[in-house]
């Protein structure tokens, strides 16, 4: 009677297990789907950090002006001594935070998220990032000629990195999640999800393979939606409607591409020289940043347009509210102010200042052309808009991203043809003048001292996941079935009492027999294990390990040491991600965003390492 009852119970249990397994197979997400889910979470959290940072920036701005008016207008209202004091004080405070933070973060690795993605393990230190972002609050809110996008991206990346470490992601997964955070930061800064995705894909990862682009897009969309729901995010640059570009204007745009492609490397070089100049002064950090702020303030007394990221001035330029003579003066002063801010080490990005440079150069060139050949430049404002994209393309060496970003920021399709043409010409011109950006040079130097984390010289142990799904050799069929329900794998690793790897039990083998109650106690794991399942050794090259996946349907391979002990598992997804990353290995980085990143290589406390990305004025 008792045996009969147990039999009925076992039968019911196995039937239940079979149904649960079926439901699980149909509904439980795959590893890639899980990655997409976490990418969305990273995007959401990245947007929240952006909102917090922007809010704090506005609060600090309100101490000396009004965040509703903008930095330029606040500067205009300040007396001359106020113009000097505010950026100087902001720089000094930023320097003090960095100096203080240096003691806190001495033992930590570089906070640069690009480095963490490209040559690191995806680990972005939290304390260092918070210190850098806090310092950026002061330098940005006090009117430094620097952008907010750097800290926004940094914060989003560090949140994503923390999220991945909490979920115990493997290094390739973690790097991808940090990249998702960066995409979210850019998307939330510019209300531009496509450009955010492509920025990371084109500049950092160097590939638009769906393995990486998919999560980036999900993260960027999640961030943008969050920003749109929680803030008044809108089209950044509202521009007038332009007439269809005539074919006679194309030579002008080609010339603009050549011009801007020539100016961008000079602009980046000037920033590097400015940085070297400030370092050569051997000022203490606080005094150095204060000096940078003082220079910006001194210029702002007469030209307040140099303060801040340049957003409002760009809006005025593309809408034709400024005379070309004014723009000429502002253009020169803004260049100088950006050199001062950036060179002194003010944390932030130079993306929007770069947009300003492009807009200014474009309008000046368009105006000049219009003066002599009206038909070759019907509306100089269109040249300003195209100049922005072209400058961005030349500075970042990422023409696709530049075109998309311009389109997303303006939603103006009228200038798409000259924009495409001009951006590509500017890119090639810039590249021919200077093969690599400042950032890529730094990254290459660092890459030379860091072991390649991707396939090339990587070993299985570098990418191995601990705690593989395993089962005892004497475990009964019912227990095996239960384990398959608990872990989403196709193979359970069978080990003996000493932890030696014996083989695998394949879900494919046992699935048809889950409804057999008699097998539950009769069959044990040892009866159904496959001993010939491929395995890899911890010290094996990843390139060799890749071959292990050939010819079998498995998402993971067991990692077995030379004593036969099971050490972990190697996921195919991790290998594929590493392959995607390898397409743009550190030593082969031809183009990277310029900007504040060169400072990552200096011995100074982490100052600024954000890429050349711009911020919105919200």
């Amino acid at each position, binding site marked *: 009677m008792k045996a009969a009852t147990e039999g009925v119970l076992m039968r019911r249990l196995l039937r239940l297990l079979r149904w649960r397994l079926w439901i699980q197979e149909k509904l439980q997400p795959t590893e890639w789907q899980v990655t997409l889910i976490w990418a969305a979470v990273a995007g959401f959290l990245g947007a929240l950090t952006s909102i917090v940072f922007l809010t704090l920036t506005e609060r600090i701005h309100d101490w000396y002006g009004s965040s509703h008016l903008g930095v330029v207008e606040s500067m205009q209202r300040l007396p001359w001594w106020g113009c000097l004091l505010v950026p100087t004080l902001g720089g000094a405070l930023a320097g003090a935070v960095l100096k203080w933070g240096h003691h806190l973060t001495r033992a930590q690795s570089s906070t640069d998220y690009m480095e963490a993605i490209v040559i690191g393990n995806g680990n972005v230190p939290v304390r260092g990032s918070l210190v850098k972002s806090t310092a950026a609050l002061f330098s940005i809110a006090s009117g430094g000629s620097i952008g907010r996008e750097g800290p926004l991206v940094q914060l989003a990346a560090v949140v994503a990195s923390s999220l991945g470490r909490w979920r115990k992601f493997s290094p390739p997964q973690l790097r991808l999640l940090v990249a998702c955070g960066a995409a979210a930061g850019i998307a939330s800064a510019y209300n531009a999800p496509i450009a955010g995705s492509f920025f990371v894909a084109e500049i950092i990862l160097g590939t638009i393979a769906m393995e990486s682009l998919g999560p980036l897009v999900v993260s960027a969309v999640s961030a943008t939606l969050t920003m749109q729901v929680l803030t008044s995010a809108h089209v950044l640059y509202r521009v007038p409607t332009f007439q269809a570009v005539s074919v006679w204007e194309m030579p002008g745009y080609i010339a603009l591409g050549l011009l801007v492609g020539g100016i961008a490397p000079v602009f980046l070089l000037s920033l590097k020289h400015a940085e070297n100049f400030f370092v050569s002064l051997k000022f203490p950090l606080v005094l150095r940043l204060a000096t940078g702020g003082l220079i910006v303030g001194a210029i702002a007394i007469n030209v307040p347009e140099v303060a801040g990221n340049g957003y409002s001035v760009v809006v005025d330029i593309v809408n034709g509210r400024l005379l070309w003579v004014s723009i000429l003066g502002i253009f020169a002063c803004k260049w100088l102010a950006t050199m001062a801010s950036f060179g002194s080490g003010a944390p932030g990005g130079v993306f929007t200042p770069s947009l300003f440079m492009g807009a200014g150069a474009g309008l000046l060139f368009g105006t000049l052309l219009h003066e002599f050949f009206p038909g070759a430049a019907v509306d100089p404002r269109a040249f300003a808009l195209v100049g922005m994209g072209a400058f961005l393309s030349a500075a970042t060496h990422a023409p696709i991203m530049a075109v998309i970003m311009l389109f997303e920021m303006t939603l103006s399709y009228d200038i798409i043809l000259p924009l495409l043409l001009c951006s590509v010409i500017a890119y090639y011109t810039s590249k021919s003048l200077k093969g690599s950006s400042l950032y890529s040079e730094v990254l290459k130097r660092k890459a030379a001292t860091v072991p390649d984390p991707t396939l090339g010289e990587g070993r299985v142990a570098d990418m191995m996941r601990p705690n593989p799904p395993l089962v005892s050799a004497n475990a009964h069929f019912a227990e095996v079935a239960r384990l398959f329900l608990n872990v989403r794998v196709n193979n359970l690793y069978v080990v003996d009492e000493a932890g030696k790897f014996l083989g695998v039990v394949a879900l494919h083998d046992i699935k048809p*027999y889950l409804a057999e109650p008699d097998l539950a106690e009769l069959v044990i794991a040892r009866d159904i294990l496959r001993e*010939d399942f491929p395995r890899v050794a911890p010290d094996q090259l990843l390139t060799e390990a890749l071959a292990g996946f050939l010819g079998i349907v498995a998402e993971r391979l067991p990692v077995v040491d030379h004593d036969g002990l099971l050490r972990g598992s190697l996921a195919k997804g991790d290998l594929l991600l590493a392959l995607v990353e390898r397409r743009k290995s550190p030593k082969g980085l031809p183009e990277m965003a310029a900007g504040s990143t060169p400072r990552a290589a200096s011995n100074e406390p982490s100052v600024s390492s954000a890429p050349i990305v711009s911020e919105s004025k919200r």
Partner: protein
Amino acid sequence: MPTDFFADAHSVVLDLEVGSGVAAVEAMHQRLVTDNDAVRNAAQFLADVRARMLLAPVCLSGELALPHARTDAVSRMVVGIGRTTGPLAFDAEHRELRFIILIGTPKAAVTEYLQAVAALSRFFRNPTSRERLLAATDEAEFRAVFAGSPAALR
């Protein structure tokens, strides 16, 4: 696997008269070795079956034991079906045993092994099948019970 696989079982013993489960396994093993050239290493095969019996029970019910081993000692699956002359105390918990089926499977044949065990468990779950097997008077009739129940062997 053909539906008449068990009808063509390599060895059938209808008058198994032994005093213990171990003796029953040894008798079936001896018969299989004699009848089959698929058993490449008789001693190893028996040792593997015994080792497996020590790891976990092999009885499906009070009447049926399925000692088995996945072993390199056989070149293909071999099956021996025995019927005892009377209730046999196979072990302490199974004292009314009437059927013993010894199975040897090559290590790579995981699917075949599961198919065989699942088919046998389904077949012996049917009381009528068991009664017909017990009532069979000769080997041909005994084999015919399996052959006449294709549904049970799907």
